[in-house]
């Protein structure tokens, strides 16, 4: 290899190593490879299924637009989200509009982590629900995996969702 090429690699390698992954795109949920998502709004009792969770055959399509320092996520199951990628806590309204959630989004290497803390269901006075999402791309950038952990004082749930790039 020529010295000039080696020098270029030496210059570009750190930048390549620390380049943020680009999650932008239209993503189609792969129901077969994804876990069935528990209903995120309700914890019903007495044997009643909450429903509303994403099942094996759910063909959910989400849109992700990644810009400088932020990501916008459009998911048909919830209001649009704008995640600020500065690692700082941001207060945003919960889906009910009645309470506030604290959201921290950080790029860590080739993953995006989103930590959210809010009253369960977005209703006042409820138990605190902590949600941790970890977003990662396959090496070829065609598969997006989102691992979600939901933690309440009495329960911890973990599930994975796999999306294919359209």
């Amino acid at each position, binding site marked *: 290899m020529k010295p000039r090429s080696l020098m270029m690699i030496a210059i570009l390698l750190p930048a390549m190593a620390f380049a943020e992954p680009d999650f932008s795109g239209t993503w189609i949920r792969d129901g077969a490879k994804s876990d069935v998502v528990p209903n995120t709004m*309700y914890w019903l009792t007495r044997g*009643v299924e909450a429903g509303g969770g994403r099942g094996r055959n759910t063909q959910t399509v989400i849109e992700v637009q990644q810009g400088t320092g932020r990501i916008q996520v459009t998911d048909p199951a919830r209001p649009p989200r704008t995640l600020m990628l500065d690692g700082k806590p941001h207060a945003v309204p919960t889906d009910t509009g009645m309470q506030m959630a604290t959201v921290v989004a950080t790029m860590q290497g080739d993953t995006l982590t989103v930590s959210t803390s809010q009253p369960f269901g977005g209703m*006042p*006075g409820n*138990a605190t629900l902590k949600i941790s999402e970890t977003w990662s791309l396959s090496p070829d950038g065609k598969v997006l995996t989102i691992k979600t952990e939901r933690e309440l004082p009495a329960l911890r749930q973990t599930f994975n969702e796999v999306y294919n790039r359209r």
Partner: protein
Amino acid sequence: MARTISRRGLFAAAAGFAAPAALGTDATIAAQTPSRSSPAGLPAVWGQDFLYQWSPPEKVTRDLKPGTSQLRLSAQVNPRLTAVKDNDYATFFSNLRAGGWSAVEAASDAWLSRPRPDSEIREVKAQAKANDVVVYGLHCAGNIIAPDPEADRWQRHIIETIHAAEALGCDLILTHAGSMYPNRNWAHPQNWSRESWTRTVNALKRICKDTAGSKVDIAIEAVNTESVNNPWAHKRLREEVGDARISVGLDITNMVHPGVAFRMTEMINTTFDLLQDQIRYVHAKDFVWNTMLPGINWAMNGTGNMDYEMFLVRLSRLQTNPYVLVEFLTENEEYAQAQRIIRSIAGKVGVKVIGTQS
């Protein structure tokens, strides 16, 4: 449709109407209390001429300063007090307390299903005391305004339960306004009629009269299918029965309808403001409205529409340590989960819960 009242019903009604004279000063409460002129319900928010007021106001005050009373948690965990194997109450109360539960109640029909010798009652009291668990009440079955002659039978059951509660050293029994159907859980269309209300008042007057001198409170639990389904009805019932032993077995979730399902902070505060220390104990449940028709479903405590922070804070401001029954879950593990959440929320707002959860 006209309904007939049997001779027995008429006698019961007559006895009820005559009762105030024998009940002393409490009987004058109703006479001294002016009728409420405004409708029962939460205040209008906006657009009341064309919208039901189902969203809360923009700014709802939530004063979360706790009081000093401590909560005693109770639950419908198995085994129940009425199903203790070999009467091993030492193990029963020890396990209960180890699970974080410091109060317990029993179902009236199960408790009365067999004679309880004095030795057994002494053992219950001794083991409860040794483990710092309070046996606070008997939860009554039955329907005190059922079509005759069932109403009389159930009223006598309540009277018998009060005597049993007295023997057991309980603070209270719990009963309900009742339904015009035999099955109390079915909403009869006439349950909110004047006749139904009068039958409830008279039934309770009879019960109070026949147990006069007892220190056992008669806590009424609101249920949406019955006439007492809101705090104003609770208050009026006590006034019309005219006996201070008529108190409140508060179950706010049982009062929920679409008009208040998203206004629970206000509903909780209004209820506690109205009833205050008439509240002798409470049921702790939660709910969501998650179907197209107004279908209210049970949810895990602290995850639904109840404002649990406000609820627990208001409980802590009562003058005595309230008994808090977690009910209508299924497995013991669910009750344990509910307790973890309640303790977590209580800790967040500075409300003390007696005991610890293993």
